[in-house]
Each structure stands twice: as C-alpha cells, then as structure tokens.
C-alpha cells in the first residue's frame, strides 16, 4: 500500500524550517516521493504502520500548534495517483506498486 500526505505549514512562533524538519522525520528510511509542493507519497507496510505514522504526524501538530495541518490518506497498492503536476514518475511507480495489492 502507499499513502499520500498533503500538508500545510504556516508561519508562527517557531521557524517554518523546524516544522518541515519535524514532519519529515517520521518518514526517515522510508521510500517517499515529492509531488507538487506540500504533497508527497510514501510506502506503507501495513495498516498498523499507517496508523502509527498518522499518530506521529498528529503529535507534530500538537508540538507546533497552529503551524501544521495535514490530510494523510491510505491507498491500495497499484491504485492510480491523480496529480497533474510534475513529479518523478519512475520513483512514484515504485512506491505505488509496493505491497501485493490484495
């Protein structure tokens, strides 16, 4: 499976760079691919993996109040990615194809 993360980072008491750094940390060591700005896809091993990542992202929202909002969506492996933006398609295809697709 794979997931798409759309997020919004706002100016606030903490530097925006700190928020960006924090939000990318949960995805260390995981195949990811940037789409347009503030959206990217990542590979997901299983449902618990997805829920744990969502929990980490929610914690970042609490650590940076008012500076980070997100929508994190789980997709079946192989499901089409709908984006009219420029993105590295071979890399995205690798991530979209991860898992057996059930």
């Amino acid at each position: 499976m794979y997931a798409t993360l759309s997020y919004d980072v706002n100016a606030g008491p903490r530097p925006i760079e700190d928020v960006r750094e924090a939000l990318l940390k949960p995805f260390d060591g995981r195949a990811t691919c940037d789409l347009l700005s503030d959206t990217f896809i990542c590979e997901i091993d299983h449902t618990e993996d997805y829920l744990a990542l969502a929990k980490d992202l929610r914690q970042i929202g609490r650590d940076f109040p008012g500076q980070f909002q997100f929508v994190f969506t789980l997709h079946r492996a192989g499901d089409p990615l709908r984006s009219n933006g420029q993105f590295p398609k071979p890399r995205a295809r690798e991530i979209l194809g991860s898992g057996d697709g059930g």
Partner: protein
Amino acid sequence: MKSWLILLGVLVHAGPALAQDSAFILGAAGRPIIRPDGTYVFNHVPGSDLVFEAQIAPRIIILDSIGDATRHVLDSERGTWGWALSTAPMVKLRMFNEASSPVRTPSYMPKGIVQVARLRNLSRADDESVRFKGPVEMWLIDAVPFGHHSNGQNGCLFESQSRDAAGTCVETVAPGPRTVNRSDGSFSTNYIEAGLHYGRMYLAARDTVPEYGTRWEWRAGAAVQLNPRGYLGGALDDELADIYGRTRLSLEAMTARRDSWRCGRLEGQLRLQYIHDTPAGVPAVTTIADASCLPASWGGTGLFVRFFRGQDYYNLGFTDRITRLQFGLTLQQATFLSFRIPSL
C-alpha cells in the same frame, strides 16, 4: 453413509486455508449480499426415496447503496444508511428414486427483496487502531414486498376432486378424509414478508487494502410472513389457506467467522418458525439449525449440515411433519462487510 463421510473429509482437506483475505469478504467497491437464501444440493437421514434435494437461489442485486454506506462508517460517529433492491429467482426441487427419477412438482419461489441497513461504529476509542476494530452494529430491515410460491401444476388440490366443464375443482367421490394430490395438484401462494434484524461485526485490518474487514459477526432478528387473500394472481385461496396457514412468524440467530480452521466462512444458524393456523397433525413450530463451512479456496462453495423438524416446506408437502438431518453442498453469496479507512 461411510462413503459420504470419506468424501466430505477429502474435500475439506483439499482446500488449504488461505491468508487473512479471501473471496468471502466484500471489497469496499463491491455490492454486499446480506441474508441470501443460498444454493444447496443435499440428501438426508433417515433415508427415504429421495435421490437429492436442491435449492437454487442466486441473489441478484439491482440497486444498492449499502456498499457505499460501508465506505463511510469508520468516518462517521452518527452512522450511515444504505438500501438495496434485489431479486432471487428461487427454485426448490426433489428428485425421487422411482421409475424415470421424477422431479415431482418443484417449488417456484421468485421474490423481490428490499433491504434497509443502518451501520454505526460503536467504538469511541481515541486510538484508531482500536476504534477501527469496531464493533460495527447493523440494524437491518429485510422485506419481501412480493414473493410467490407455486408448483407449476394444474391438477386439483385433492385426489377426491376433478375439474368440471368450467374448470372448477369439485368433489367427485363420497365425502371422507381428503388426501392432497401430490402428483399434479396445484399449489400457489403470494406473500409479503418483513423482518427486523440486529447484529454486530468485529473487524480486523486487511493490510493489503485500506480497509477493515469483518473477522466475525453475529445477528438476530424476527420476521413475519403473510399470505393474504387476493394478493395478485396466484394468491392463496381459502381452501388451501385452511390447511396451509396464512401467517408465519420466525425468530433467527446466526454467527459467522472468517478464515477459521480451514473455512473461509464458518457459519452457524438457528431458526424457529411459528405457523399461526396450522392444519391438524402439523406442528405449529418448525426448528431449523444449520452449520456450514466454505473452504477458502472453493470460491463460495462448501459443506453444510442442517437439522430440520416441523412442517414440510416443499409445496404440497405442507401436511407432513418431517424430522431430518440434511447434509450436502452449498454455494453461498453472503459476504463479510469491509469498511474503508478514512483519511486522517
């Protein structure tokens, strides 16, 4: 009997249990089939002159929004509603071990079905990995606005009758105990049925798709069936109503488990039916208990055993009290519901 048991053992062991996902679970884009009648081919003990009995009842979904409702259950605290319109061109038949193996007066039982379902996740846990496991409750109204049961024959109902010049069945022998004409006696009724059912589904992550699927479920409910006078062509006439009964009440409970032992679907069911106005000699209460195992690799086919005691359900057999242990093959379209994981 021994050869039947050996065959059943071989068949069950031929189907290896698959991983968590199976054909028995509905994909979130599918149309759920809830409380289908099922297709069966079977025999029974104690033995009789029956070669086999069969029920052929494919459920055909015409319109459905219950499938769509399942896509939003995990995302909604208030629950979701859906409805479905379907039909079942059901046929029951018995082949007898007589000259030329006749299939004597099959039951033709087509019906239209309307179902309305309300689904709601009862879990209020903050942690999604707990909350998404449910249980999800389902209230189900299961109605048959029109059902027909006939045997396609044109003879008179009783052996003591024959048709006069106008085609009306009249008594032609001296009055006495009347015997139902089982070779070509005409049987026909139209009915309305309505039931209310409540159940809960306990879920597990499917992991290959973004959904939580039902791991096991239980459901219980009650229904009433009316066979009104003059309910379109083929309705139950007064003569037949006196010995068939116009009103039936039923209670039922079921439980089913996914991927248990070697069964993709393991199900047990108990049903009690009360016939309000039964003829003398026929018990008012019918008891049905059955269990089925659909091996994961059999694509919906499996084995079942059923205990039946009560009024014979086979058209002209309604004056008989039968007690049977039925066993054989079944094809079930019932699917475990699956619920889409919402965006977080």
